[in-house]
């Protein structure tokens, strides 16, 4: 493959390139069969940059035509027609080339390649619309058309050498200009920084001075900035005369900036040609150099509209002080801001204040775009450079099952989990696994795979777009539906076995049978078997001690009876407390009834009423005072232990306790003859013991409790904190036996003993069954 050497940087380029990839300089026309680099180098050496081309392209073309004429006698007609057609085409292209290079040589003060670009753009924009279809194909690819000319190889070679010769002089001049502007203006960009192309014609700001900007900044950046400006049609007619064949996408720099009046008329791209130019210019922005500029330059600020100002006369392409740039920068008025048509490129509306700010007199910028301006990550990367260190793929460590528990996978909220992409979700789907008998894939183990459908890792088929809003059936839902269907088909129908029904029926039968047995025993023990009870040989110490204490209660002191039990235990409390109450009634003691539970006051009064049947001489109206409900629980009891008269001021009949006949002499709890607490719970009894016992002194504290509270109260009796204790129906029967009364529950002693015996038997049988039958395998224990 032949390479093309750049006349500027002497680097090799691809044959199809029109501009140098390294310095962006225009490459001379290329002919495939020409040994271009060698000729160029040899001639360059011989002429030492002032070499005159010995033969022009036109002369070479004439020589070629002459030789063709000489051989015309020996050629057939068809070949002559082809040759004549080719000759006519060649002449036409040759004329274009001559005009192109002639105008290029005539221009001075600018680099050859840059002037040509401007002229090309001028030519493109100056073409009238009606002639556009004819000119455009030829304008779009002028160089390619020359390349296709097989007979013009020597002509093109001379042509580009000629252009090289003409280019040398402007280059020297350009150096002079740059050196003269080093104080206040940046040096013109090096060839490497020259932009490759320009943008389509765009509308310039009114005060925009191209020459100033050009001298201050890089050519490429200016062309880039001005790429989106629309074209003025009025200017086109004036520039038609200067039409030259320019590379695609280049605009004449002089036309880029026009007065604002004209720009306002054509601030919107209107013609199809302009649209085509804009579109074609977009494709040229793929150069890596331009990409770098995009990162450096404040293009966003350039998009701001210009301020309307008085038009200034065109300035020749001469450098001026940077201070003038501030004068011409202004903000556009709102009237000038016109909306963009859809699909159009935004007009070049540059905020000159911001653009010119880098070139203020305070700052001397020698390089328009320094490498320091680049981001760090971009400064280290050269165009087309690939990363030095290849990215290594992550190596996933194999998971070794060492028996340690693995952390559970985190779960997202339902609403968030539903929005996860399908690819991020491990969806279990039900698929058919191969049966054990089937042939397995190599390297896979099939022996452990069950034959039924199993849950395996899914093959993801959904996309995140399928998880959008609205009622859509996602893959997850489909998978769940499939999973449920598999489960539904695999689950065996649950049959309500007759055995379970029989078991449930047996439980009801056994429960009813036990209830009937207990009722029967209770009834028989209270009626037929009433006299067949076992007399207790030993009386409990606490009951005997209670009986003794009741006998020692002074008659002038009342007895405080505090009821602290639930109504559900009223039957047991009645059987337990009735002998004790009868004993005190027999002694004709005064009673002060207090209810810690609201219902206890009535229950205690009812017991006194029942006791009056056994002790008819007892006058309840004068011997009993109802203190009513005493709220507050432990706090109230503690308060009452400190001062009874302050805690209990009124009776249930709203009589002052200090004036009542029974309680008028009671100020503290120790003023009572005895404190009898009737309770069904050990916690309530403990509260009384803890709160009032330390302050009772010689006053005995007697407890009448339910049977269920006695085991936890006995330690207090053993420790001497409780003086007497009667617990449960057995304690009441014993007290009744000591008292010699026929009231109370002693008549039900047979029922009590039979029932307790039956309960103990059931507990023992149940414990034996629990211990024995599970070992034999016949138990139901789970």
């Amino acid at each position, binding site marked *: 493959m032949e390479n093309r050497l750049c006349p500027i940087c002497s680097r090799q380029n691809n044959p199809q390139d029109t501009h140098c990839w390294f310095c962006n300089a225009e490459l001379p026309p290329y002919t495939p069969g020409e040994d271009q680099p060698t000729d160029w180098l040899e001639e360059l050496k011989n002429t030492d940059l002032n070499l005159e081309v010995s033969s022009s392209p036109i002369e070479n073309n004439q020589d070629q035509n002459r030789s063709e004429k000489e051989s015309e006698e020996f050629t057939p007609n068809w070949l002559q027609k082809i040759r004549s057609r080719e000759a006519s085409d060649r002449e036409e292209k040759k004329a274009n080339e001559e005009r192109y290079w002639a105008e290029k040589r005539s221009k001075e003060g600018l680099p050859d390649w840059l002037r040509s670009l401007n002229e090309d753009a001028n030519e493109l924009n100056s073409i009238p619309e009606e002639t556009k279809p004819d000119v455009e194909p030829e304008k779009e690819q002028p160089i390619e058309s020359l390349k296709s000319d097989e007979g013009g190889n020597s002509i093109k070679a001379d042509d580009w050498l000629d252009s090289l010769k003409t280019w040398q002089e402007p280059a020297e001049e350009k150096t002079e200009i740059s050196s003269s502007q080093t104080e206040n203006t940046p040096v013109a960009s090096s060839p490497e920084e020259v932009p490759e192309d320009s943008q389509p014609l765009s509308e310039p700001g009114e005060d925009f001075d191209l020459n100033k900007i050009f001298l201050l900044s890089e050519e490429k950046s200016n062309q880039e900035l001005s790429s989106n400006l629309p074209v003025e049609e009025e200017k086109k007619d004036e520039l038609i005369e200067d039409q030259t064949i320019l590379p695609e996408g280049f605009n004449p720099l002089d036309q880029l900036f026009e007065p604002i009046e004209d720009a306002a008329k054509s601030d919107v791209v209107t013609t199809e040609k302009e649209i085509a130019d804009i579109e074609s210019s977009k494709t040229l922005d793929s150069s890596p150099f331009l990409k770098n500029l995009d990162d450096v330059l404040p293009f966003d600020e350039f998009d701001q509209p210009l301020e309307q100002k008085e038009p200034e006369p065109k300035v020749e392409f001469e450098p001026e002080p940077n201070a003038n740039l501030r004068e011409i920068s202004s903000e556009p008025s709102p009237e000038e801001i016109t909306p963009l048509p859809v699909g159009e490129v935004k007009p070049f509306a540059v905020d000159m204040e911001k653009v010119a700010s880098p070139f203020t007199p305070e700052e001397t910028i020698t390089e328009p775009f320094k490498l320091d301006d680049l981001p760090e990550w971009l400064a280290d990367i050269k165009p087309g450079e690939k990363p030095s260190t290849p990215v290594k793929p992550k190596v996933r460590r194999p998971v070794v099952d060492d028996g340690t528990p693995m952390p559970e996978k985190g779960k997202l909220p339902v609403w968030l989990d539903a929005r996860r992409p399908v690819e991020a979700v491990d969806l279990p789907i039900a698929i058919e696994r191969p049966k054990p008998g089937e042939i397995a894939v190599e390297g896979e183990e099939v022996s452990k795979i069950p034959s039924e459908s199993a849950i395996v890792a899914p093959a993801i088929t959904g996309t995140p777009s399928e998880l959008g809003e609205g009622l859509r059936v996602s893959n997850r839902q489909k998978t769940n539906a499939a999973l449920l269907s598999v489960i539904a088909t695999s689950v065996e129908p649950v049959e309500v076995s007759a055995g379970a029904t029989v078991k449930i029926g047996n439980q009801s039968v056994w429960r*009813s049978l036990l*209830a*009937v047995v*207990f*009722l029967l025993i*209770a*009834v028989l023990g*209270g*009626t037929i078997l009433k006299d067949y009870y076992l007399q207790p040989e030993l009386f409990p110490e606490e009951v005997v001690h209670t009986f003794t204490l009741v006998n020692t209660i002074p008659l002038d002191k009342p007895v405080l009876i505090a009821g602290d039990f639930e*109504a*559900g*235990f009223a*039957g*047991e409390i*009645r*059987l337990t407390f009735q002998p004790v109450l009868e004993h005190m009634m027999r002694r004709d003691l005064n009673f002060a009834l207090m209810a810690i539970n*609201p*219902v206890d*006051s*009535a229950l205690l009064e009812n017991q006194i009423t029942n006791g009056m049947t056994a002790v008819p001489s007892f006058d309840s109206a004068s011997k009993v005072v109802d203190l*009513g*409900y005493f*709220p507050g*629980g*432990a706090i109230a009891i*503690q308060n009452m232990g400190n001062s009874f008269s302050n805690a209990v001021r*009124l009776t*249930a009949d*709203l009589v002052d306790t200090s004036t009542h006949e029974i309680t008028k002499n009671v100020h503290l709890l120790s003023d009572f003859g005895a404190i009898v607490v009737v309770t069904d719970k050990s916690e309530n009894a*403990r*509260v009384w*013991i*803890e*709160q009032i*016992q*330390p302050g009772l002194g010689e006053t005995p504290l007697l407890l009448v409790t339910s*049977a*269920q509270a*006695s*085991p*936890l109260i006995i*330690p*207090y009796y*053993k*420790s*001497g*904190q409780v003086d007497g204790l009667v617990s*449960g*129906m*057995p304690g009441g029967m014993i007290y009744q036996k000591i008292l010699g009364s026929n009231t109370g*529950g002693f*008549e*039900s002693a047979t*029922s*009590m003993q039979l*029932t*307790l015996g039956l*309960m*103990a038997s059931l*507990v023992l049988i149940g414990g034996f069954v629990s211990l024995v039958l599970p070992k034999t395998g016949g138990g139901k224990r789970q």
Partner: protein
Amino acid sequence: MTFGPDFIWIIVSFILTILVFSYFLGDHAIFRFVMALFIGVSAGYIAVVLIFQVIVPRLVVPLLSGSQLALIPLLLSGLLLLKLSSKFSRFGNIPMAYLVGVGAAVAVGGAVMGTIIGQVKGSWNEFFPSTGGSPFLAYLEGGFLLIGTLATLAYFHFNGKKGNTTGGKRNMMMSIFAWIGRIFISITLGVVFASVLTAAATALIERTDFVVRTIQLFTGR
């Protein structure tokens, strides 16, 4: 027996008792009606008791008599009623804090002075024989009581040395005491369970006796 209020209440009590006994046939509407009736009657009775035995004598009467001290419970009660409102319920925290704080202080003080010191003192007194009693039996009973108490406390002592493989482990002495304490605890819980059964049996017998007596009353036997 003459027809009067007592006779009516005996009939009503008999019917309600039979209906409650019908629960052994299962939970049915009649049983649920009886339960609702009991709950309703109890609530109504308690409300009346609270009004006429608490609010009137302890709040209204002092206020009418000009006691300014009664304004404090009135204010605290009003704040406690704000607990019903979700917007102002935080104001009810003041009386609640007062009740909880005072209740905790009373309970702790009572437990220390009434139970801990009293039980320690009682256990120590067991070693001294009563009048005319055998000192050997006293020592035996006191020792048994002391061992039971210490063993029970040792069972609830869960500290131990850090083991190499299976966490903490009690030392040998503590393990022995804990094992003994588990025996005492089992016996205690068994006794409590037996006492509960006794209380249930007592309620059954008392009601059965009432039914039998009522039937005998109606039949005249």
